């Protein structure tokens, strides 16, 4: 697999429909750049050739330009091709085909967003979702299920198996949120009152992505305290007194003590990898905690996914 990099252009792409999204974006940009460069060269040429100078006079009447008409027709045609060839059919297929045709191996998940957390709700072994009611909501039963032991509910951690169609019913219970996994080119608003199905299929597991990802140098500062996402240290750090603060390969979460220790040891940047490098972000402004409304996405193997569900059921 290609190395997974972050920044400056498309992020890595681990979904089946992603390449067509990227391709369309590329094509539109080819068109845009061609037009822009064409205009730009023509404009610069005009500015130089027709600058005001002694002896040069403006022409009242111009030779007939056919070029502009051709250019406009060409733009319209290219847009038509992009529209009819890409956008409409591919969009229709990724938005509609699967939830309707019953794929036997599909995984159905419900995603419920709230300020500021994501809940992922999987049916238990019976394959049915329990009835839920807002009146039953309490910390131990965040979705208000009739019998919380019969379904699996995960908060801020989204597991699903690789190479299988995943159907997610996205909704929100307070304000509008945006369900967005940039690495999978998946995005949809979570609108209260609507339960909207979207689907996608992953092509790489979390472990493969992790292996292909280059480590990042994370700036150490007080802002890290309280972050929930687990990291894996790529270098060992010794505290000021010589004891091991972090060993290479350690899985850890930034806590107050750790950050203090790192700062005390004079560490400004730390080489780490995210344990779950695929992230789910909120795309719609949803309040003060909007930017922190993050969930980890884990693309599992079948065994990992089964273990995950079993673990959630056991609780």
């Amino acid at each position, binding site marked *: 697999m290609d190395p997974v990099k972050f920044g400056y252009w498309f992020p890595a792409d681990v979904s089946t429909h992603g390449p067509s999204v990227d391709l369309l974006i590329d094509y539109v940009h080819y068109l845009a750049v061609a037009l822009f460069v064409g205009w730009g060269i023509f404009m610069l040429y005009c500015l130089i050739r027709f600058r005001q100078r002694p002896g040069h006079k*403006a022409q009242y009447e111009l030779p007939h330009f056919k070029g502009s008409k051709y250019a406009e027709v060409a733009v319209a045609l290219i847009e038509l091709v992009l529209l009819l060839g890409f956008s409409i059919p591919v969009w229709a297929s990724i938005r509609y085909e699967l939830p309707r045709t019953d794929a036997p191996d599909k995984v159905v998940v419900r995603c419920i967003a709230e300020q500021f957390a994501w809940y992922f709700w999987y049916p238990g072994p019976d394959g049915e979702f329990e009835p839920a009611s807002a009146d039953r909501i309490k910390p131990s039963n965040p979705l208000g299920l009739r019998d919380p032991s019969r379904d699996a509910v995960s908060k801020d951690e989204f597991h699903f198996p690789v190479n299988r169609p995943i159907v997610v019913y996205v909704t929100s219970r307070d304000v509008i949120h945006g369900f967005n996994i940039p690495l999978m080119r998946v995005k949809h608003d979570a609108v209260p009152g609507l339960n909207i199905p979207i689907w996608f299929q992953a092509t790489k597991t979390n472990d493969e992505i992790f292996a292909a990802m280059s480590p990042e140098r994370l700036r150490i500062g007080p802002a890290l305290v309280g972050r929930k996402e687990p990291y894996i240290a790529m270098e060992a750090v010794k505290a000021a007194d010589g004891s091991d603060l972090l060993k290479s390969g350690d899985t850890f979460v930034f806590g107050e003590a750790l950050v203090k220790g790192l700062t005390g040891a004079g560490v400004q940047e730390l080489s780490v990898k995210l344990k779950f490098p695929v992230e789910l972000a909120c795309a719609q402004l949803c309040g003060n905690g909007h930017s922190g409304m993050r969930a980890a996405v884990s693309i599992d193997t079948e065994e990992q996914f089964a273990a995950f569900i079993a673990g959630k059921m056991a609780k």
Partner: protein
Amino acid sequence: MTDTHPNGSPGAREAHGGGHGETSFLWKYVFSQDHKVIGIQYGITGLCFLFFGFTLMMLMRWQLAYPNQPLPWPWLAELLGNIRAPGGVLEAGFYNQLGAMHGTIMVFLGVVPIAVGAFGNYVVPLQIGAPDMAFPKLNMASYWVYFCGGVIMLASFFVPGGAASSGWTSYPPLSNIATQGQTWWLVGMVFLITSSLLGSVNFIVTIVQMRAPGLSMFRLPFFVWAQLVTAFLLLLAFPPLEAAGVLQLMDRVFGTSFFLPSGLVVNAIPYAQTTGYSGGGSALLWQHLFWFLAHPEVYVLILPAMGIVAEIVANNTRKPLWGYRLLVYAAIFLGFMSFIVWAHHMFMTGMGTVMSTFFQTTTMIISIPSVIILTCMILSLWGGSIRFSIPMLFALAFLPMFAIGGLTGLPLGLTLSDLHLHDTYYVIGHFHYVVAPGTIMALFAGIYYWYPKVTGRKMSGLLGHLHFWPTLILMNSIFMPMFFMGMAGLNRRMYDQTVYVHGRGVQPLSLMVSWSAWMLAVAQIPFIINFFKSWKAGEKVNDNPWEATTLEWAAPSPPPHGNFTTLPEVHRGPYEYSVPGQSGDFCPQHARPDSASEGTPSAPPVPAAH
């Protein structure tokens, strides 16, 4: 000739002056009914709001460049107070207030009032040879209603909980459950909408009814056409937002549920338990009503800018605009289509395939007239004798900047590519290219261009260059990186983008954007100096310093009350530059055919000062 003049007697000016009676300072400059004074009022107020909105953004940029680090100056943190900036670090809620109010202020209190209120008010009656707007009292009222709206918006920063913080789009239910500031925002918007409605009625009537004799619709300068289309957009697109504002006020004040679906759970408690709300509304209804306005609003922002650029390009290439009629038809078509594309802002809300196909098709169609307008303007350069005056530099910069803004709209208008780019920094880059390096550059061009008409003096060229070049470069170094940030998948409205690994990847770009933004503020200093200094100390110029053809240059500078000393009569189209067989290179619209053929560049004779 003046005796049979259907537009007024030779004494129109005196009569007009007599009409307003009072000449005290208060009535002459504060509650003036003269379109020129009102235009200047709009302009100054709009520039102040523009500056204020810019300041809000500079604050935001600190948090984005240096997430969670205290502000560099303790006095600033102290000024903001402990609620807004505890320990000098901007608070997330305050950051959202800054974001929401930056958008609102820039669009509704800054750019539109300058583009329409200031330039439209000042220039349109002059360009059509009218003594004033059709309804001077209404004109005054629309300024003061706008002013009140602005004061309400500013005051909302000081109410408990601060200003509106749900984005300039104010999507419910977030805005429904937001603090009091949102109610102030809604009331302020109702004022601003009312002001726009009054103004647009005035503009349309003025342009339709009060053109000078001989000034047929297809002899109107393109700027007037742009203002006419804009006025229709304001007239017919704003009321739905007013309706939406009323509905949200009902929701917030009287507890209705227009935008609240049943079964909401806020903070893990059923919302009905805490508020007794009934439910049954639709969260997306607001988006429909909002975007029904806000998409045409994009063209309200851009059309007057195109009008300004067209005037300046024609004047500084010393030749007629290429495809004048095509430009006019394209502008009308653009205005018309802008009413039926709005839901491309809502592709990610669960829209079905039929409607999304409809809206992406109309969106692709609307790109055609934009391409035509831009192409016409660029082709107009061909065969000219191009003067690189300061207004022309800004106008020329507008063309590629608007092109970038327009072209980057294409991937957002197609559902499939919108899938990745929706709600990311790409969107921010896109519409800022249209509005900031696009429209605002055109507004600067307009200020430099019409300044001699307003004051009788030119702005300094040296300071103009010092303003233009850094502004052009910095505008690009602010907004170009945003496309790359958006491509990387970074969502907009993020208080702290370093929460995400893909956000950390583009954090250096964020730093670059912030520094460019702060430097852009510095780059405006020459403009501010120029603007105020030239008022009294600028180079004195004659009534038509740019040797232009349109009617505003037939009036004295500054034009007196009632505008024209002799009422103009129009004999030709708006851009008769370099007409073959004439010695001068311009032929004003009002020059009589016989005197024009004599080719006196400074024709017609303008009576001595008053």
